[in-house]
């Protein structure tokens, strides 16, 4: 009994990982089974383990507080990251189950999926270089295998090219770690940051350059976006969500791990690094939004917008360099952008998958914007929710999308208002103008893209005679049959978006109604 108590005490802060590994272990016993009852059992076990891990993660943090060991580190940021990952995992599980339950290798898919989620949670918790690298590589292996098993072999060349770039990114990170090791025998980024003398070492600078290059490649930021866009256009439906919300967050978490060191260099070489970050962000914002405008494929539109949001996140580094934002705010921006994408993309994509499935013609243009035409008129309930979600993504005040827009644009205007009249124009003032202009342009372009979607869904629907062979399953008026679950799913997301938006707006206006025990507009 004492041994068990000791074991439980030693893993006290890692219950979320233990629960997930428990579910993974149970699933392993049924890996070869093709029985539908067992598949449903495994789905239930997986869903329950994700929910239990979510609760354990929050409960442990509240009861035991922060935690740090040789390999792991748990602070508020990690708790939020893990909660977001588990929420994402639960949603992806729903899509994987809906799309693949009839496949003979379904339980194997769930096993690989659980392994990927465990790796992502471990990556978030890791502080030691060994743990960071191994969990990151493990996650890449897991996602590669997941995509390989979810898709048929037609995708081979695209999948291989995509993951060759990811492998290159992983190997460049290995080279980066080797240089870090040369500059100091410290084992994690915090130790490096705390030793200010070592920060002047050129090897640390080379390590940071290699590390950032690795993450840049991994995230397929412009101009390396080709393989990512091609695979998103062609892969099976739930794979798209795996790439967006299991693959990309890993790169973003890695960025967040080197934040402190990046901030040190930004403060030291404020001018050059701020200019570099503005340039990268501007390229992402411009190319992402223009690319989205010039295509009719919904998957490509969402992919381009996702890349532009990565640009918006990178812009926050430039905001630190020019003094527009604090360091804590950057971490908030990264998490807020991920959460906004999660809250918008999952319900939007649930509608799009249903439309793609209901189309009977060849797969060439299943995701064409034309297929959404008139959708909100004939499916009024889902249509209204769909438009609310789009409006939130557009940045309407009172919805979740407004909050991060506000914190990108408001600091500049506050700076102008509180600045004395005869202040000399410095490089920081010019950078602040450029950053705010880039953010405003990006949000206008994004609004145009969203308005385009709203106009299409509100347009006059196609009739059966217009469609020739019949576009949708129900040939009479273009009405699409949604599963009952999707009504609940999309409504839940609309309510979350409105609730978060209202609470955020009240916090911005400094009105505290005590609705939630934490602030959503800041850590």
């Amino acid at each position: 009994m004492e041994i068990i108590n000791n074991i439980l005490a030693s893993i006290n802060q890692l219950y979320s990982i233990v629960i997930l590994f428990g579910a993974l272990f149970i699933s392993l016993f049924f890996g070869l089974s093709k029985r539908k009852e067992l598949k449903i059992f495994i789905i239930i076990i997986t869903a329950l383990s994700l929910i239990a891990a979510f609760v354990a993660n929050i409960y442990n943090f509240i009861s035991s507080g922060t935690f740090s060991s040789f390999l792991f580190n748990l602070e508020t940021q990690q708790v939020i990251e893990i909660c977001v990952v588990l929420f994402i995992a639960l949603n992806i599980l729903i899509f994987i189950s809906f799309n693949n339950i009839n496949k003979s290798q379904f339980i194997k898919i769930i096993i690989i999926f659980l392994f990927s989620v465990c790796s992502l949670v471990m990556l978030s918790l890791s502080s030691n270089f060994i743990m960071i690298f191994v969990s990151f590589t493990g996650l890449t292996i897991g996602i590669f295998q997941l995509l390989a098993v979810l898709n048929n072999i037609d995708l081979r060349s695209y999948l291989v090219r995509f993951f060759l770039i990811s492998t290159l990114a992983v190997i460049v990170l290995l080279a980066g770690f080797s240089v870090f090791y040369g500059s100091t025998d410290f084992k994690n980024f915090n130790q490096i940051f705390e030793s200010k003398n070592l920060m002047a070492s050129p090897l640390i600078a080379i390590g940071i350059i290699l590390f950032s290059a690795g993450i840049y490649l991994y995230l397929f930021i412009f101009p390396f976006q080709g393989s990512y866009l091609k695979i998103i256009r062609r892969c099976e439906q739930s794979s798209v969500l795996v790439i967006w919300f299991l693959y990309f967050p890993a790169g973003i978490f890695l960025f967040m791990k080197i934040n402190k060191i990046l901030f040190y260099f930004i403060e030291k070489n404020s001018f050059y690094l701020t200019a570099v970050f503005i340039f990268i962000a501007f390229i992402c914002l411009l190319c992402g939004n223009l690319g989205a405008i010039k295509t009719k494929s919904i998957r490509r539109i969402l992919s381009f917008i996702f890349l532009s949001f990565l640009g918006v996140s990178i812009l926050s580094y430039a905001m630190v360099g020019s003094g527009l934002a604090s360091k804590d705010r950057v971490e908030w921006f990264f998490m807020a952008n991920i959460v906004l994408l999660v809250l918008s993309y999952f319900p939007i994509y649930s509608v799009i998958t249903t439309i793609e499935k209901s189309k009977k013609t060849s797969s060439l243009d299943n995701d064409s914007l034309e297929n959404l035409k008139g959708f909100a008129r004939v499916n009024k309930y889902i249509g209204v929710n769909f438009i609310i979600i789009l409006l939130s993504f557009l940045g309407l005040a009172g919805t979740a999308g407004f909050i991060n827009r506000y914190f990108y644009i408001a600091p500049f205007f506050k700076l102008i208002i509180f600045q004395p009249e005869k202040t000399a124009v410095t490089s920081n003032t010019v950078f602040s103008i450029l950053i705010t202009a880039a953010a405003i342009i990006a949000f206008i372009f994004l609004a145009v893209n969203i308005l385009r979607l709203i106009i299409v869904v509100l347009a006059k629907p196609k009739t059966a005679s217009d469609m020739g062979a019949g576009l949708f399953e129900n040939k009479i008026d273009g009405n699409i049959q949604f599963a009952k679950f999707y009504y609940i799913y999309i409504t839940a997301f609309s309510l979350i978006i409105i609730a978060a938006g209202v609470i955020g707006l009240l916090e911005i206006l400094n009105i505290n109604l005590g609705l939630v025990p934490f602030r959503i507009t800041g850590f």
Partner: protein
Amino acid sequence: MNLQLITYFSFLILLSGLFGVSFYKSFLSILISFQLIIVSALINFFSFSLFLYNESVWDKTFTLLGIISVYLLMFSIVYYNFATGGKIRDKAPFEPWDDYPLFKLDKSDWWGEDTLGNN
């Protein structure tokens, strides 16, 4: 041999690997370029460990686990490619879809539509 010389040598190998990755397009050449970058990282680890940190245990653990995980990733990709009918040898006749130019710039990646079936 001194540490400086070894570091220059490892940096040269790293650059050769990066050149290979960006220049070649056949699967095998890209894998070989990956090896060069890995070898460069290994040289760094071992040389720093030997000259600066008296052969610490930590770097051996990192090297071992890191190399196992990276090679597992590469093995997964090679095996998948081989098992699904992809070619790994750079031999004629060589089909265009067996090329993997990692940094190919395509107009459709920036502008307009991406036609399905287009490699």
